[in-house]
Each structure stands twice: as structure tokens, then as C-alpha cells.
């Protein structure tokens, strides 16, 4: 039972970080990325392999060759996660530079979908990289009593992510992202480099996905293409849409409701012995229906995006003297 609760907690944290990352990317920046889960997978692979050590039987062939050059592939704990984030970030730059070139945004989104399908097939077929369809397993936990300590560690990472995403959301940077989401043309007309912002938020979101992936594999210990089929991306979209696009608290709520709730609710459905695949299928169909339903009935989600506030600026509207202020503005007097 304790193990079950630990699993749920880690799963929740993993989905919450995934959701927060996608919320920055799609909710704030308006960059639609159907390859989002690919970066989660990359994070899991890199985080797993760097933690595995030099175990000949488990480490994929390519990495064994890297060992032969005495390069550091086996890393101590926080570095495994960081390396996952860095690798995903570098890969994001490459993908983003190509995908975000597209003038029509939906072409770019379509391309992320193709990138995902291609990489999925490729990683399965090219066994040297990540052991193909077999995947990696036996990843050791970074803490001695994972049942107790791993959820706590995971919550720590969630706290860091929460603070980071919160700072980004409430900052002028987040404001520019929102403006680009709403009207990219008008944002460009005010001097904002739209492609630059989109690329940065694409990378930022994908790095968070990788963090989440590295976090999950540290607990479950195994990872293969079966764990990251294309429909998994839908779960994350569902989390953001159900929770509330642009609202971080809503997204964390969404992670609990959709990510953990629906996953676990179907466990209690009566099993059909003749068709063991039925229950997982029901879960996917349910998530699809919920996503479409929310987009129709409550497109802003359970907790809609909040208005911007400046609580740290203490002045009230109307605290301005009348007169020709424009002149002062021009001269820069108002700045003092």
C-alpha cells in the first residue's frame, strides 16, 4: 500500500512538471508541439543511462563505446537529471530551428507530429542508441529507501519547477509570450522578436519535459518505446486543457485529476479476462472524450488564466496629476 501511494505521488509529480512545461509552451507561448512527449522520453533515456553505470548488459551499445573513450557517462545523482535536461535542450534547439521556421503556425505543429512519429520509429529500430524496442531497465534509484524518500525528492523538484514557472509566468517575459500567443503580428509590430521567443519557450518547455522523464525513470527503473506512444502526448494536453490553460495551479490540479485520477480510476473497473487490453483502451478513449468535451464546454479549463497583477507596486490608479504628461513622458521626466 505504501508503495502504491509512493507510485501515485511520483506519477503525480511527473505529470505536474510535464503539465507545467507544456503550459509554458502552449498555454503561455502558443507553441503547439505534438512531439512534447518525445522530450519526456529523451529525458527518461538519458537520465536512466547516465544512472546505469557501466553495466555491459544494460547500457546500449553506443554508450558502451563512449565508455571506451573514458568519457564520463556514469554520473552522480543530480547530474543525471541535469544531463537529461541539457540533452533535451540541445535537441530542442535543432528541432525548434526547423519547425518554427514555418510561417503558418499549424504547419509547424504538424511537423512536430511528424518529428515524433519519425523519432519513435527510429529509436525503436536503431537498437544501438536506446536498445530499440527492448529499452533500458534496472536503473538504480538515487536514494536508499525509494518508497519513502523518492516521493519527497520528486516533490522537491516539483517545488523548483513551480517557482521557475511562476517567475516566468508573472514576468514581462511571460507577458510577451502571451501577446505573441494572441496576436503575433501585433507583437512583432511592437518590437518583439517572435521567432526568438517561440524558440526559447519551445526549449524551456521541452527541458521541463525531460526533467519530468528523468524523474520518473529514477523511480520506475525501466523505459522502452511502449511507455511513450503518441497518445501519451494527449494526456499532457488534457492536463493543461482540463486544468486551465495559462493557470499553473490549474495545471497541477489537472495533473491530479487527469494524469493520476483517470489512470487510477480505470484500475477499479472490473477486468475482462477475455480481453486484457480493454481497460487501458477505455482509459485512452475516456481521456480523448474529456479533452474534446472540455474544449467545447469549458475551453478555459477548471481554473481559468488569471489577470496580471502588480502586488509589489504600491500605487493606485488615478495617482497621476493631470496636465500635459505626454511632454514629460517624451522628455523622460516621468522616468524619475
Amino acid at each position, binding site marked *: 500500500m505504501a508503495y502504491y501511494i509512493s507510485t501515485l505521488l511520483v506519477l503525480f509529480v511527473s505529470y505536474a512538471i510535464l503539465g507545467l512545461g507544456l503550459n509554458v509552451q502552449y498555454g503561455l507561448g502558443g507553441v503547439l508541439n505534438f512531439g512534447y512527449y518525445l522530450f519526456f522520453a529523451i529525458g527518461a533515456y538519458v537520465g536512466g543511462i547516465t544512472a546505469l553505470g557501466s553495466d555491459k548488459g544494460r547500457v546500449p551499445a553506443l554508450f558502451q563505446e563512449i565508455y571506451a573513450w573514458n568519457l564520463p557517462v556514469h554520473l552522480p545523482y543530480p547530474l543525471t537529471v541535469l544531463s537529461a535536461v541539457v540533452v533535451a535542450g540541445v535537441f530542442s534547439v535543432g528541432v525548434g530551428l526547423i519547425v518554427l521556421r514555418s510561417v503558418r503556425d499549424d504547419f509547424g505543429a504538424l511537423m512536430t507530429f511528424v518529428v515524433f512519429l519519425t523519432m519513435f520509429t527510429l529509436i525503436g529500430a536503431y537498437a544501438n542508441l536506446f536498445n530499440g524496442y527492448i529499452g533500458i531497465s534496472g536503473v538504480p534509484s538515487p536514494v536508499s529507501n525509494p518508497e519513502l524518500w523518492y516521493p519527497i525528492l520528486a516533490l522537491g523538484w516539483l517545488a523548483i519547477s513551480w517557482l*521557475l514557472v511562476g*517567475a*516566468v509566468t508573472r*514576468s*514581462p*517575459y*511571460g*507577458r*510577451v509570450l*502571451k*501577446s505573441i*500567443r*494572441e*496576436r503575433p*503580428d*501585433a*507583437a*512583432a*509590430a*511592437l*518590437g*518583439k*522578436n*517572435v521567432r526568438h521567443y517561440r524558440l*526559447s519557450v519551445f526549449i*524551456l518547455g521541452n527541458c521541463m519535459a525531460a526533467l519530468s522523464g528523468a524523474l520518473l525513470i529514477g523511480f520506475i527503473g525501466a523505459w522502452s518505446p511502449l511507455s511513450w506512444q503518441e497518445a501519451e502526448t494527449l494526456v499532457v494536453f488534457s492536463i493543461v486543457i482540463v486544468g486551465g490553460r495559462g493557470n499553473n495551479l490549474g495545471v497541477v490540479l489537472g495533473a491530479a485529476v487527469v494524469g493520476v485520477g483517470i489512470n487510477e480510476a480505470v484500475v477499479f473497473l472490473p477486468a475482462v479476462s477475455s480481453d486484457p487490453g480493454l481497460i487501458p483502451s477505455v482509459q485512452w478513449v475516456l481521456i480523448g472524450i474529456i479533452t474534446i468535451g472540455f474544449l467545447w464546454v469549458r475551453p478555459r479549463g477548471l481554473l481559468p*488564466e488569471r*489577470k*496580471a497583477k*502588480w502586488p*509589489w*507596486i504600491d*500605487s493606485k*490608479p*488615478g*495617482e*497621476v496629476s*493631470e496636465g*500635459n*504628461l*505626454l*511632454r*514629460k*513622458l*517624451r*522628455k*523622460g521626466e*516621468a*522616468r524619475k
Partner: protein
Amino acid sequence: MIDDLTGGAVGDDVSNDGLEKEPSLVCSDVVKAFGGLRAVSGCSLTVRKGEIVGLIGPNGAGKSTLVDILSGRVHADSGSIVFEGRDVTRWTPYRRAAAGMIRTFQLNSEFPGLTVMENIMIASQGHPGEKLGPVIFQRKKWRDHERQEFSRGRMLLSEFGLSEMENEYAGNLSGGQKRLLEIARSVMAEPRLLLLDEPTVGVSPLLRPRLLEHVRDLADHGVACLLVEHALEVVEELCDRVIVMAAGRVLVEGSFDEVIADEGVRDAYLS
């Protein structure tokens, strides 16, 4: 960047006389064709600092396309655009805007899901908080800047009579208020050249003088303004010089009275 904008010709030197003759925008022989249709065919014009130039002409004369070309949204097939001595023909829209060429749009272009205050703040130029690094590592730095910009935004909102709406979503404003917001946003961006595409459309007659007063005020402080406008009474009242476009090229150029008296202009409007 910020020093560049505030310390430039606009902020320091507000006397009109010396600036009158200095050109801000020079556009020469600009051509743009869509498919087989020549929307702009060999258009040349100059806007000087502190001057309000009206751009009028019948529908389909190519005025809006020209504004799109000047702001960089559409690339010209040939011709050149020089802004304050720099050739900006190949520049992207954001780069032109950051250099001080600010435009407004013919259709509403407020950010509907952002509050009025946010809409204003977006226009702030060279804000350190708009970069990811300072957001995470230098909170004090960007917050100091934000505080200054915020009070500037407050003043602008009060100037434009939008103070009450400060915390309202911009999408909920009336058509005229959206226009005012857009002009206020342009002022916030500290323009050196303002391209106004039909700014008075949808603005109530009560608010209109206020809007025009602001444009005049900007020009008095050395900002060059190019104003595309259908309402001739606005052009007459506001513009120092009027350019008439027809069929993608400049037909006549001169004072309002000269232009209106021109036979060719009448023909162009009637045909």
C-alpha cells in the same frame, strides 16, 4: 537600446524649427505585386521629423499595402526604404519597430486576453524583464525597470482616458477604446516614426479630438507621422502635408487645399 531610444533626436531636441527639414523616412520606387496585380507600383515619398503627412486615395490605391511594406510585414519586390539614414528595406518587422518605426493596424490589434495595463506594458522597449536570464536571476533589476514603466503606463492610460479600464481585459473594450489603447500603446513604445492606418475608424466623435490631439502632440515633439485616413476633415485639420495615392503610385503631393483643388485627384476619386 533604451538609451538609444530615449536619448535620440526625439527626447532631447524638441524645438521644431531645426528638425523640420530632416527626413525621417524616405521610401523610393517601392513596387509590390500580388500575383499579377500591382498593388504598389513605384511609390516614393518622404516623411520628415515632426511632420504629419496624410496619405489618402480611393479604395485599392495601395495605401494599406504601403504601410505593410513600410512596417516590414510585407516585403517589397523592389525599391528601398531608408529610416533615419539606415537602409531598413530587408529588416524584419520587429527590428524596425525596435528601431522606432511603430505602426498601428487597420483592424483591431489589441491583445484581447491581456488586461489594458498589460497591453500598454507590452510596448515597453528594451525591458530587461523580457529576457529569460534576468527574469530568473536578476529580479530586482527587472522589477525596478517594471516599476518605472508601470508609472509611465499609468500616466498614459490617464491621458487617454482609460484609467478606469486598467484592469479590464482589452477584448472587452469598445471599438473606440481599443483604438485609443492602440495609440496609447504606440506612444508607450517611444516611436520616432508613427504609421497610423486609419486610426479614427470606429472612434466616437467625442473621443476623436482627443486622439488627434495626441497625434499632434507627438509630432510637436519631433515624431514623424504618416497617417492613412479616409475622413478628409481629419486630414484637413491635422496634416501638414497630404499625399494622394492612386493605382499604386503617388498622384499629387502638397497642402490639403492644393491637393483637393487638383483635377487628377478628383478624377481618381470619381473613377
